[in-house]
């Protein structure tokens, strides 16, 4: 066989399931990002605190998440935790692995963003009579937010792309759903091409909207 005959009918019929899969992909990425952000704030605070124990715990989390493959983390959550009697569903396994990585990466982003703001600004604001809350609310955090905005967008896109590893543990997000549908119909190429296009559209949509939002909220700011 030298040429491949494409059959798109099965794929078109399966569109509702594929869209459902795409929704699950977005779902797990958004949730893992939100939980990841909360943990990342705590990790960044722990890393910057004076407590040695907090430093070590945060350091271990951050370094393991950054220096091992995402696939390893998903396998750990799915197969490894079984040794402790914890059996996660595919969704929870992928979700917790993504949270683990997002938290680790974002913690470093937050810490870097925070430390990039000169300490003198803090004293200057205090000398103007601002309260601690005001210093953070009006001086430190707005500048920090500007610095961490794009790394956060990238991390979100990374989560969307990496959630595709759900295919390996039988999760029903876009890749897993594609895998299941192609195994019934044997239209492997058609299904994965459509999945590729859908991922492309999703990531482009996220990146373009993130850019539009940043133009609005950082209007007039010197970046």
């Amino acid at each position: 066989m030298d040429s491949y005959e494409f059959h798109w009918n099965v794929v078109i019929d399966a569109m509702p399931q594929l869209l459902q899969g795409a929704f699950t992909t977005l779902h797990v990425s958004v949730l893992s990002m939100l939980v990841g952000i909360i943990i990342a704030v705590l990790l960044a605070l722990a890393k910057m605190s004076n407590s040695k124990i907090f430093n070590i715990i945060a350091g271990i989390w951050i370094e393991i998440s950054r220096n091992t493959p995402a696939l390893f983390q998903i396998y750990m959550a799915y197969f490894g935790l079984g040794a402790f009697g914890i059996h996660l569903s595919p969704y929870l396994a992928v979700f917790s692995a993504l949270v683990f990585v997002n938290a680790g990466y974002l913690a470093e982003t937050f810490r870097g963003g925070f430390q990039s703001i000169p300490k003198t600004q803090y004293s200057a604001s205090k000398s103007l009579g601002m309260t601690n809350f005001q210093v953070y609310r009006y001086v430190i955090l707005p500048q920090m937010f500007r610095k961490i905005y794009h790394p956060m967008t990238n991390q979100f896109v990374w989560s969307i792309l990496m959630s595709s590893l759900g295919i390996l543990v039988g999760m029903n997000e876009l890749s897993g759903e594609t895998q299941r549908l192609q195994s019934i119909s044997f239209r492997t190429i058609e299904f994965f091409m459509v999945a590729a296009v859908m991922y492309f559209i999703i990531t482009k949509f996220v990146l373009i909207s993130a850019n539009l939002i940043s133009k609005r909220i950082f209007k007039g700011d010197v970046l």
Partner: protein
Amino acid sequence: MGMSLFTPLSWNDSGFILTGILNTIYISVVAIVIGTILGLIVGFIRSESNKLINIILGSFLDILRSVPLIIQLILFSTYIGAMGHPLDPFVAGSIILSLYTMAFMSEVFRSGFQSVPNSMQIAARSLGMTYWQTVRYIRIPIGMRAVFPSWLGVALSVIKDSALVSVIGYMELLRTSEQLISRTQQPLTILLGVGLFYFMISYPLSLYGKHVERKMSI
């Protein structure tokens, strides 16, 4: 208990594990080397070209960066197979992983080339250097040194992403361990070993990258 279906991990498995480790290193090095060379060329073309060529090249690179690696691997190896030219998993994996690496490396190198001030080129030209001499002796050495930490970051993520080539049947470390897990039913021990291996490669190199970055920022 009598005969067990599963056999525990033993020293006899060390050869099998070593093959997995070597295969992971092998495909990572291939992808990093080819991806760096291609990325350097593409990055240079992009920093030198007009808008039209940049848009065309940029959208091709965009596709490589916006479609999950695992989908690219499955799609490519299935398509080549269906066309009647099945490729060895190593070859198919190397091609996709190298292109994927190139997509990220080209951005790194493009910003490297752009970081070299134009006045340096003008100065070099006025000293009688040809265009290619300025590229060879001014822009590549200076521009590439500036982006070394980013290059290292991409290289490290390639080592980690190489685990995905297991999906098209390449026997790298993670696939090796998967097979050992199904035989021994000792997932935790095996996975911890695998994680430790990746960590021992990635962590020292990431520390080195941070060190270089700190030295350069002063």
